[in-house]
């Protein structure tokens, strides 16, 4: 095992890596920028070092030189990149390797590069997996027109090296193609620090996403986990996951698991990876291999009891896979929701700020991982995921019911969150049937409807009551209203209320 592991990330994944590294008996080293100094990962780390903001246009967690320099100085033997930030950055990997530091990311046969989506797609096609129809790579604007014509609209534009929705756009409208092209090229440079090449693919309307986590050791022992499905996404980021996928037939699962095995052998994956498929009109299409740990892996851990994050670190240190066949119980279903500080009713606009109040849900088979607390300041600079909430039930129905109640109990004040939206999703017929798609959530009207579906007739009475009572107790506003009434010369019934509302001395504190 490694002795000292530096975690080059923040938030939930930082805290989870710190936990896993400590469990493995190594020293967990966190790095952080000033605003993050009170977060769980920093608190729980064995050692924590503050990063300097050297350049206003470069967030410290993306400051490759600084992090590599620190890793070298601190004599770490491995760096865990988490997801996002430098997780997919080829230069980061090279700089660390040249200093004898291992990056905890899957390794593949030298002929392949896992973060190159296009190359992986080609390899999958050659291994006999079905892939989505699309173009070859290009980076010239001149080639754009012909490529769009060849694929047809709607289409998906992808940067060669993208992750988590960055460097990817669904385009339905020809007028937006050029702008998207420029945007993807500039974000590729900024967030991924990678090549600006793109390729286009046919957009499969209404497709479902399933992915299979895989652990594979240096000797080629392979464990393919049951699939995760993420029917609810926003901008290609998951909002809800479940495992196993509802309504996936057993023969399809077996077929895809064996294709995953073939592909991983073909490209010589070693470590942890997730192989993603689209299922469109009953047919599967290979989509990509993700080489980084993902928030959804926690759901797999709950389903199978295998700690994927810990195994990932262990395998990359050169140890071998010592888990036999997976004992998958048929009577387990896991649902997870990701809670973001953003407003789904305002096009998912980020809602940074201070958390005034936080009430966490509670109970058997309810699992919460959160980085926030009362008084926590949610930074405007990063992906605003603030919590992962998972439940486990004996059946899908039980898990859905549990998740609905759990979300209802989860209260966050001070920032807006997608909790109401997720409650609406959980009780929708479409979700129950398994017919909910990412496109459905992408429509603002549908989101509004899902949230409105939670309101009962009594709720509008309660809201009216709350508004009236809030005003009734607000002496200052009433006084101002009173003055206005006096000006207008009407008889003041308000006066009585205003006097009555003046704070009484010795009134006991509520």
């Amino acid at each position: 095992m490694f002795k000292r592991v530096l975690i080059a990330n923040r938030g939930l994944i930082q805290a989870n890596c710190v936990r896993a590294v400590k469990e493995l008996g190594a020293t967990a080293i966190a790095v952080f920028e000033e605003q993050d100094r009170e977060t769980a990962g920093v608190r729980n780390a064995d050692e924590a070092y503050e990063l300097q903001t050297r350049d206003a246009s470069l967030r410290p967690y993306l400051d490759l030189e600084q992090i590599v320099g620190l890793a070298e100085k601190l004599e770490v033997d491995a760096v865990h990149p988490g997801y996002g930030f430098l997780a997919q950055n080829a230069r980061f990997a090279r700089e660390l390797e040249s200093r004898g530091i291992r990056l905890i990311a899957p390794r593949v046969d030298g002929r392949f590069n896992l973060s190159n989506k296009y190359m992986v797609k080609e390899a999958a096609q050659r291994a006999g997996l079905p892939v989505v129809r699309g173009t070859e790579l290009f980076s010239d604007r001149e080639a754009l027109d012909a490529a769009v014509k060849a694929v047809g609209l709607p289409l998906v534009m992808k940067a060669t090296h993208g992750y988590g929705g960055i460097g990817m756009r669904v385009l339905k409208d020809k007028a937006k193609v050029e702008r998207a092209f420029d945007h993807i090229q500039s974000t590729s440079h900024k967030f991924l620090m990678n090549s600006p090449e793109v390729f286009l693919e046919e957009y499969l309307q209404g497709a479902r996403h399933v992915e299979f986590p895989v652990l594979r050791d240096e000797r080629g022992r392979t464990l393919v986990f049951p699939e995760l499905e993420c029917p609810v996404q926003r901008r290609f980021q998951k909002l809800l996951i479940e495992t196993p996928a509802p309504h996936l037939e057993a023969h399809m699962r077996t077929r895809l698991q064996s294709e995953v095995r073939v592909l991983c052998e073909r490209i010589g994956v070693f470590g942890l990876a997730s192989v993603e498929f689209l299922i469109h009109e009953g047919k599967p299409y290979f989509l990509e291999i993700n080489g980084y740990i993902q928030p959804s892996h926690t759901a797999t851990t709950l389903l199978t009891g295998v700690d994927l994050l810990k195994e990932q670190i262990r395998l990359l240190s050169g140890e071998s896979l010592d888990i036999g066949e997976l004992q998958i119980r048929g009577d387990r279903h896991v649902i997870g929701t990701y809670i973001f500080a953003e407003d789904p009713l305002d096009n998912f606009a980020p809602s940074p700020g201070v958390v005034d109040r936080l009430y966490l849900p509670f109970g058997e088979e309810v699992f919460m991982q959160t980085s926030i607390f009362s008084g926590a300041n949610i930074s405007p600079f990063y992906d605003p995921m603030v919590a992962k909430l998972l439940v486990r039930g004996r059946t899908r129905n039980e898990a859905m019911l549990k998740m609905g109640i759990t979300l209802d109990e989860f209260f966050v004040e001070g920032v807006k969150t997608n909790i109401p939206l997720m409650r609406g999703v959980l009780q929708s017929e479409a979700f129950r049937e398994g017919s909910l798609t990412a496109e459905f959530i992408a429509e603002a009207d549908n989101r509004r409807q899902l949230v409105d579906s939670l309101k009962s007739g009594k709720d509008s009475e309660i809201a009216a009551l709350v508004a009236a009572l809030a005003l009734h107790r607000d002496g200052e506003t009433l006084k101002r209203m009173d003055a206005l009434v006096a000006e207008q010369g009407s008889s003041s019934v308000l006066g009585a209320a205003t006097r009555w509302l003046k704070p009484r001395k010795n009134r006991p504190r509520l």
Partner: protein
Amino acid sequence: MNYSVHCEKKHSVSIDRKADLNKAFGIAVDKSQYTVAIRKVQEDGKIKTLMIDHRVVPIEVERRGDGLPVRVFLKGIPFDVEIAKMASTRFRPPLPEREISGEVRANLPGQIVAIMVREGESVPAGAPLVILDAMKMENEIMAPKAGRVGKIAVSRNEVLAKGDLILEIE
């Protein structure tokens, strides 16, 4: 005290003037009778938690400039409210100001990544002015009304707090 509150439909809310706010008291909304107790208030006296018919209800109230409530959140679900009338006076609360301000401010904290207009340039309403990068998203800030771009108060890569002035449309 009677309040007429518009929330999805018109509701008549009646709060007993003699109610002792330290104990549970009755509030009538239309034909329903609720028993309400105040459970938690913040330092300035604003209510944070109510007990309504023996159920705990954490509440959030958004107010407009003159203090009148405009939105109530129940478990994060927004309800637009409008105090239409109070008691039996002919008094109607004043409407909020209608004139659109030309001041363009950062609606959230972030970093300016592009400035798309020049000082003195004429822009139509809705024209993109700057791109503010916040939480991994590029947010286009648009002109609130048509006019001429006055002094631009920010520069590229500048980090802004929520509410910082970006520029003014004259």
